[in-house]
């Protein structure tokens, strides 16, 4: 059964700290891995990773994928209170061989990050 596992499930840090969030996956016909930030209800897209070893970066956030070891990490440097949220990792399967579309993302449970002032 396809699954995505995130760790830790929750994390409390102080402003200015650097954090690393982990995501491991076991997905048949894996295509890509995505990171979302969820505040309140709507997840907002952060990164999509398709190739191993290529870091994606956006401001203080960065992420990398290891397709051999089947994991990804999300780093946040110089954390701010506004970074407090649930960070979701999701794996996207490849389009099926018979040409049908696959629209499902397989999400992990998320990491709840709390940044204290």
């Amino acid at each position, binding site marked *: 059964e396809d699954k*995505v596992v995130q760790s830790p499930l929750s994390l409390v840090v102080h402003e200015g700290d650097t954090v690393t969030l982990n995501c491991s996956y076991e997905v048949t016909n894996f295509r890509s891995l995505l990171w979302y930030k969820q505040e309140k209800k709507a*997840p907002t897209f952060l990164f*999509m990773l398709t190739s191993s070893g290529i870091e994606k970066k956006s401001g203080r956030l960065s992420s990398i994928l290891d397709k051999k070891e089947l994991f990804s990490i999300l780093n946040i440097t110089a954390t701010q209170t506004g970074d407090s949220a649930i960070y979701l990792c*999701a794996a*996207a399967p490849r389009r099926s061989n018979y040409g049908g*579309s696959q*629209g499902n*993302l397989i*999400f992990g*449970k998320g990491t709840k990050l709390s940044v204290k002032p």
Partner: protein
Amino acid sequence: GAGVSQTPSNKVTEKGKYVELRCDPISGHTALYWYRQSLGQGPEFLIYFQGTGAADDSGLPNDRFFAVRPEGSVSTLKIQRTERGDSAVYLCASSFAPVTNTEAFFGQGTRLTVV
């Protein structure tokens, strides 16, 4: 519209009742997805539409759940004979490309509470 709109934002219903949840996707987005998120869990895939047709409904938990998208835009998720275990946040997302979820934008969700 500017973003994915879901209505209502909150719905409380009695066990056994029928409910409809609405999703209005971003204009021009052909792909539409429904997910369900229970407390402390990640979103769980329910169904995916490409245009008017359900391209993948493998995530619907049972036959009490049904979704439509008759004109390829607005979608309605319908739940019959609701049970307390159906309580969750129901998220809708839309995108231009059918399987490229990078472009998928999520709505604010409908929080369904079955009492």
